[in-house]
């Protein structure tokens, strides 16, 4: 479904991604793990067209993405929930959700149906519909960010550090939500610092170091690897 071939991304003279290749099959949850600065977020930004690609190719369902502008990539059905959530804080929860559906030409009835589906998954958002997004708690904001991504009815959902900055109780709630989304056969790429939970959930995973893939395999297999246990799980 998604194929990244020898991807290179530079920030000025800094080579953030140095020839990374990844594959994501339909219906899979693929995790990308690695330490700070390994290039995890940059890969997602390259897929969604937020950063220019210096070399390599990104293909999605037979179409080359790395030459398209960001808004066209969203129209192909790729939702990116970025690190820091990027909510529209001055707008209401409902307006944020409406914007999540911007790239889709839903009829009123379709929009209401998608909204209902999303709100069934995140009931708190229905209660907060008229509240400004910036006034929500951290956990609620993260739910809104994921819900806004789902309003696109994406074919590929990319989540960047969804548990970052949340209380432990909220973190487990977010992972519970992710496993619910996964059960719907949605294709997901997850970038997480929470390596244990991330690999437990993943069908397949990539470990990134200084812009290169250094290890890959099924999530449960990687969890048994000494390198992972020592470097990321402190065992």
């Amino acid at each position, binding site marked *: 479904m998604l194929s990244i071939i020898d991807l290179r991304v530079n920030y000025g003279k800094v080579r953030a991604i140095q020839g990374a290749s990844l594959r994501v099959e339909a219906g899979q949850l693929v995790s990308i793990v690695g330490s700070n600065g390994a290039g995890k977020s940059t890969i997602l930004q390259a897929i969604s067209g937020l950063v220019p690609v210096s070399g390599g190719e990104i293909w999605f369902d037979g179409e080359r993405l790395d030459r398209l502008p960001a808004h066209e990539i969203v129209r192909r059905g790729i939702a990116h929930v970025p690190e820091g959530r*990027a909510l529209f804080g001055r*707008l209401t929860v409902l307006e944020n959700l409406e914007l999540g559906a911007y790239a889709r030409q839903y009829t009123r009835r379709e929009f209401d149906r998608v909204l209902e589906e999303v709100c069934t998954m995140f009931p708190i958002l229905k209660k907060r519909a008229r509240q400004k997004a910036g006034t929500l708690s951290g956990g609620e904001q993260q739910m809104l960010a994921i819900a806004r991504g789902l309003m696109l009815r994406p074919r590929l959902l990319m989540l960047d550090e969804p548990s970052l900055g949340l209380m432990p109780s909220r973190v487990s709630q977010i992972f519970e939500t992710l496993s619910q989304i996964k059960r719907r056969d949605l294709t997901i790429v997850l970038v997480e610092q929470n390596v244990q939970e991330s690999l437990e959930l993943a069908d397949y995973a990539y470990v990134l170091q200084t812009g290169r893939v250094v290890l890959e395999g099924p999530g449960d297999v990687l969890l048994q690897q000494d390198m992972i246990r020592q470097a990321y799980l402190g065992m």
Partner: protein
Amino acid sequence: MDLAVILQTLLSGVMMGFVYALVSIGLNLIYGVMEIINFSHGAFLMLAMYIAYWLNVMAGTDPVLAAPASGLAIGLLGALTYKLIIKRVMKAPALAQVFSTFGLLVFLEALAHFLWTADYRTVEKTAFSGVVSLFGLRVGLAKLVVAACAILTTAVLFWFYNRTKTGKALQATAISHRAAKLMGIDTDRMFLISWILGGATVGMAGAFLASLYNIFPTIGTTFVLLAFAVVVLGGFGSITGTLYAGLIIGLIENVAGIFAPAFKYAVVYALFIGVIVFRPKGLLGR
């Protein structure tokens, strides 16, 4: 002081306030979406006044009725300004952006001097003349019609900005270009729309003002300075703040005009400096 004079002044202030708000909204809309100040905004207003004037001279059209035509023409000028100038300097240093629109202001004023000389021109054939009674107060019909049209135009813009899908996309772009892109919003298109709307609103405001003021090549500067005061008071990036601030500036100008007519703009600009010093984000700015 006579109560009728006070009420008359307040009414006049509110009416002009709506016009000032309409003059300023486009300036703030473009700033809100792109964080670029259009210094040529005053020249856009001046051109709109000339369009209304010439339509009046050649076709006898009342300036108020010429507003859709001048709105369309200046909206188009806004689009061309974005496509031919702004888009090319967007990634340039901020000073390049400042001087590009400032240069356009100078160019358009010089062009107006060349084409129409520095002579003052006045619209003579108006459909709305005389004085009417409103709640016992005497109001010039032309001013009343202009205020009503400014209110209507502002209301339509507010509806568009707050109720339509494109309006919401403009708001999203104003908050964060990056986040807007992630929603599938074509931010380049939003920038273009903000310049079209910015041009169209000041284009309509210019036609309205043409029936109240003399027209000459540097007339825009007078109003654009007021527009800067309105934008600063209302808050950079806040369309609602611009409306409130327009009303406040209109009232202050008119009330100060009773006590010291020659000093009224000094009062307005003292407030402008005060806001910059003590509350730089204005009433509702971000």
